[in-house]
Each structure stands twice: as structure tokens, then as C-alpha cells.
């Protein structure tokens, strides 16, 4: 219609105005796009700069670090990494951390799955209060539980074991898992359960064979969050351990040697704590967008 030749002067003017508008809008959206990229780039720079600085220091010798500011390593060295990978008090920190994080993920997800199913499908006495009580545990400051945990786990003989930390982190991780999973499960229509039961599936078989595959992305996202909160927590983890199950975080706080803080080793150890996180994000990157809303968009 608009491509046909105009017949009246008025129509000519109108068409010209339209074309003009379109052109202007195109250039405006192009500048907007560039501004957008610029802002995004600036933010990414802000995120990366401190991490770059850590990385930079981890490749410098301590003399270079203290000698003056250098924007990139002048004499590139792996000595700090070599130290971490050969000294058992260092690398055991990583193994300990990963051990209790994995344990916690397994415990949390296996008890949270049935519980979340119950919350998403059934009404029962006290369900709302129970759910709120669960969430309150997520809100409990770890500092509050510091001393009683220490005494509790000391009494039951679990002090300085991976299990102690894994169980302690259940305090906030189980409620979180239930909360996220409940959101994902509620978006699965109930008719699926009913059909399966009519078809003669028993509850456990239905749950494992049909239901869990249906919410697999939700489970992936939940595991991501469980990893995240267990991996980053240090206050409880360092209080409940001394030497046998010490997490890397508390190993790092003890780098003060005779000659002051070993900055290079600190930087290298810090860099290595970032890597597992990046790996985990990489695995769930396609689900993260949906999962971060905890199944509730």
C-alpha cells in the first residue's frame, strides 16, 4: 500500500514523513544498541577488574608484589600454584571443601525432593506454618548457631569431620532446596500424577521414572544453588573443623608467615576457589535464566 505512488500532495508529504521517521528510528536504535553494549562492557569491566588483579598477583613473585605496582606479571611464575598443589595442608583444603559440599548437595536434594512434592501436591495439618518455619531457618544468621553447633557436634563426636559441616549447611540448604523445587513441581500439571496412578504406577516408581525426569532442569538449578551456598559459607565450616576437615577458606586465613602475609599464595589460592564455581555455572548456563526465578515467574 505505502509503496504505491502517492496521488495527492498531502499523501506525498505523509509518505515522506513516514520514511523520515523510520530512518530516524533506525539510527536511534543503532546508537541505543551501542550505548547498551558500552554500559554492559563497563559493568563487565567492573566485575572483572578485581578478579584480574587477583590473577595478576597470583602469577607474581612476592618480591614483585611488594616491590611496586605492576599492571601485569613481569617475571611470570607458577611458584604459588606449585606450592598449593604440592603442600598437603593447602590442597587438602580444596578436597575437604569439595567433600562436604558434595555431601551436603546429596543429603539436601534427597530429603528435599519428597518434601517439596508433599508441599506442592497436598494440603495437610500445619503445612503453611511448617513451610514458613522452614524458611526461617534459611534466614537464621550462622553467627547465632556458631556456639551451639560447636557444642552439639562436639558432643556427638562429629567435630572436625566432613559430615558435620555437610549437616550444618543443611540448616539453610534444605529449606532453599524445598523452596526452589516446590516452585518447579507446582508448574507440572497434576493430571500427570493422576494419569500415572491410573496406569498402575506405584508412588516410588512414578516419582523416579516419570516425575524426576520432568523436573530435571529444576533439579539441576537446585543443585547449582546448593553448591553455591555451601561453597561460599565459611563461618560455620571453619568453626566445626580444626585440622582434619578444614575448608580452603580457613586455610587461606592462616597464610600469615614469619615475613607477613604471603600475598602470592593468598592470590593463587583465591584464584583456585573461583574455578569450581565457573565450571558449575558453565554446566547450568542454559537453565540459569529460568532457574534464577526459582521456578516462579
Amino acid at each position: 500500500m505505502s509503496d504505491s505512488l502517492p496521488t495527492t500532495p498531502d499523501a506525498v508529504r505523509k509518505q515522506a514523513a513516514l520514511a523520515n521517521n523510520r530512518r530516524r528510528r533506525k539510527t536511534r536504535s543503532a546508537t541505543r544498541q551501542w550505548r547498551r553494549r558500552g554500559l554492559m562492557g563497563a559493568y563487565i569491566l567492573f566485575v572483572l577488574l578485581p578478579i584480574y588483579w587477583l590473577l595478576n598477583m597470583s602469577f607474581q613473585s612476592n618480591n614483585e608484589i611488594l616491590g611496586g605496582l605492576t599492571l601485569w606479571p613481569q617475571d611470570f611464575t607458577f611458584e604459588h600454584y606449585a606450592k598449593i598443589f604440592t603442600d598437603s595442608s593447602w590442597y587438602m583444603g580444596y578436597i575437604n571443601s569439595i567433600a562436604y559440599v558434595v555431601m551436603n548437595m546429596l543429603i539436601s536434594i534427597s530429603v528435599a525432593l519428597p518434601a517439596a512434592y508433599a508441599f506442592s501436591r497436598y494440603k495437610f495439618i500445619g503445612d503453611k506454618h511448617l513451610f514458613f518455619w522452614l524458611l526461617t531457618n534459611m534466614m537464621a544468621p550462622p553467627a547465632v548457631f556458631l556456639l551451639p553447633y560447636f557444642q552439639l557436634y562436639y558432643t556427638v563426636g562429629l567435630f572436625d569431620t566432613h559430615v558435620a559441616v555437610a549437616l550444618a549447611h543443611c540448616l539453610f540448604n534444605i529449606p532453599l532446596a524445598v523452596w526452589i523445587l516446590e516452585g518447579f513441581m507446582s508448574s507440572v500439571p497434576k493430571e500427570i500424577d493422576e494419569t500415572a496412578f491410573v496406569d498402575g504406577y506405584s508412588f516410588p516408581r512414578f516419582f523416579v521414572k516419570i516425575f524426576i525426569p520432568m523436573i530435571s532442569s529444576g533439579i539441576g538449578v537446585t543443585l547449582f544453588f546448593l553448591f553455591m551456598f555451601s561453597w561460599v559459607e565459611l563461618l560455620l565450616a571453619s568453626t566445626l573443623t580444626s585440622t582434619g576437615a578444614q575448608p580452603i577458606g580457613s586455610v587461606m586465613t592462616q597464610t600469615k608467615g614469619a615475613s607477613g602475609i604471603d600475598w602470592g599464595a593468598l592470590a593463587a589460592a583465591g584464584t583456585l576457589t573461583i574455578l569450581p564455581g565457573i565450571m558449575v555455572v558453565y554446566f547450568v548456563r542454559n537453565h540459569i535464566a529460568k532457574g534464577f526465578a526459582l521456578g516462579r515467574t
Partner: protein
Amino acid sequence: MNKVYNNRAWWLILPMLLLVAFSAIIPLMTVVNYSVQDVFDAHTRFFTGTEWFKEMLNDPSLHAALLRQFAFSLIVLAIQVPLGIGIALIMPKSGWQASAVLILVTMPLLIPWNVVGSIWQLFTRGDIGLMGWSIRELGYGYNITSSPVDAWATIILMDVWHWTPLIALLCYSGLRSIPDAYYQAARIDRASRWAVFRYIQLPKLTNVLVIGVLLRFMHSFMIYAEPFVLTGGGPGSSTTFLSQSLVTMAVGQQDLGPSAAFSLIYFLIILLVCWVFYTAIMNMQKDKNQGGV
């Protein structure tokens, strides 16, 4: 979803309940126990009633810590929420850039909290840190160990760096759930960029934003490791927040009674604020369900 009334659901909950009860109720009862007693040693203890609570509620240093804590949480929320929304709006939506940006933005969230403190300590030191050194070169005597203003600004900047990604990712996932048809309709209506944000994007974001604000409030209110590593609570006690006061009292000074009373007050404040948020979320979901059906 209309749920079936069935009390056998308790069986599904039971394993979780036992586990959480073990790690929540027993310790909490220990705290309650300590908070009403004066413990000398394993065998000598006196019942003190509400004395510790009165003492804690009248302690000026705790009032100061509480005020600092609220100020910190509010400042941090006021910066992170708008910034997070802004970043979510400009994040690329498809292609390899989307994955790359997603991974980069998420990174700070997955760094152990004390390492975050260390990173910023290295970054802001006046002699060896890029930021501290640069600011000094520009002629400002930046020093977080002697100037409370610098210490506060640095801690807030660190928290923005650390936690804005959470809000951004929550909003990003909220934005992703908006069907394209909405945007097409807006284009047909010639809606302005602001109108699209105000009437299409923001309503979709309220849900995730409430979750985000709740999580951010909670975590900012119990912040411990990052300022502890970065400033150690100093200079003086200008950046000592509640968790740190509590840990000093409980572990450093071994004041079991007062610290237990303090714990309970602390916990109750968080509970109160979160209960307000929780009822807001529940009401919103109810409204949505009624509106939808």
C-alpha cells in the same frame, strides 16, 4: 493448583523434618537455654530470667551496631536493586554473548565470602592494590584502615560487586519469561521505551524482585566474612556489623548468656522483617491466582 487434603503427606516430609530439626531446633534450644542462665562452669549455673535480654537491649554498643547494620542493608538495597534491574535490561538475550555474559556476571556469586574479602583487600590496598593505588595517584589520601568514610565506601562497593549479580540474574530470568507478543503489541501501539518498561517489564519483575529483595536483605543483615577480612570491623568499630559483634562476644569473650540473648534478639529482628516480605509474596501469589482464573 487445588491440592488434595491428605495427612499422609507428612511421611514425605518426615526425613527432611528430622534433619532440619537436628540442625535447627536442638541448637536453638541451647541458645534459649543459655539466654536465661548465668553459666559459670559445667556444674554451676543460675537462672537469671530476662536479665540478659534487658542488658542487651540497653547496650549502647549494640544499638550502634544495629543502626550501622540497618544503614548498611538499606544503602546496599537502594544501590543494588536499580542497578540490578538496569543490568538485566541491557544483558544480551541470545547467542554466545548471552552465555558469556551470564557466566561472567554470575562469577562473583560463587566466590567464597572470605575470598571476596581477600580479593578486595588486595584490590584496594594503597601500596599493592590497583584501586587503592590509583585513587592515591589521583591525589586523594585513600586509606581504609584509618578513614571510616573510605572503609564504608569500600565495603559498599564490594557488596555491590558481590551481590548485584543476584538481582540482575533474577530480573533477567523474569524478563525472559515475557512473551514476544507483548513487545509486538507495544510496538504496534508505538509505546515509548519507558512505557514498555513501566507497563510490561516492571509488572513481570515484581515477583522476582520481592524474592531478590528478601534474599538480599537477609544476606546483607548477616554479613560477616567480607568486612571481617577487609577491614576487621575497623577503623575503631565503624564497620562492625551485628554478626561480628555477636561472634566477638560469643567466641572471643565467651559471654554465653548475653550473647545467647543477643542471638535471639538478632534472629527475631530478621524474622520480623522476613515475615513481612513472606506475607507480601503469599498475597501476591494469591492475587495472581485469582486474577488468572
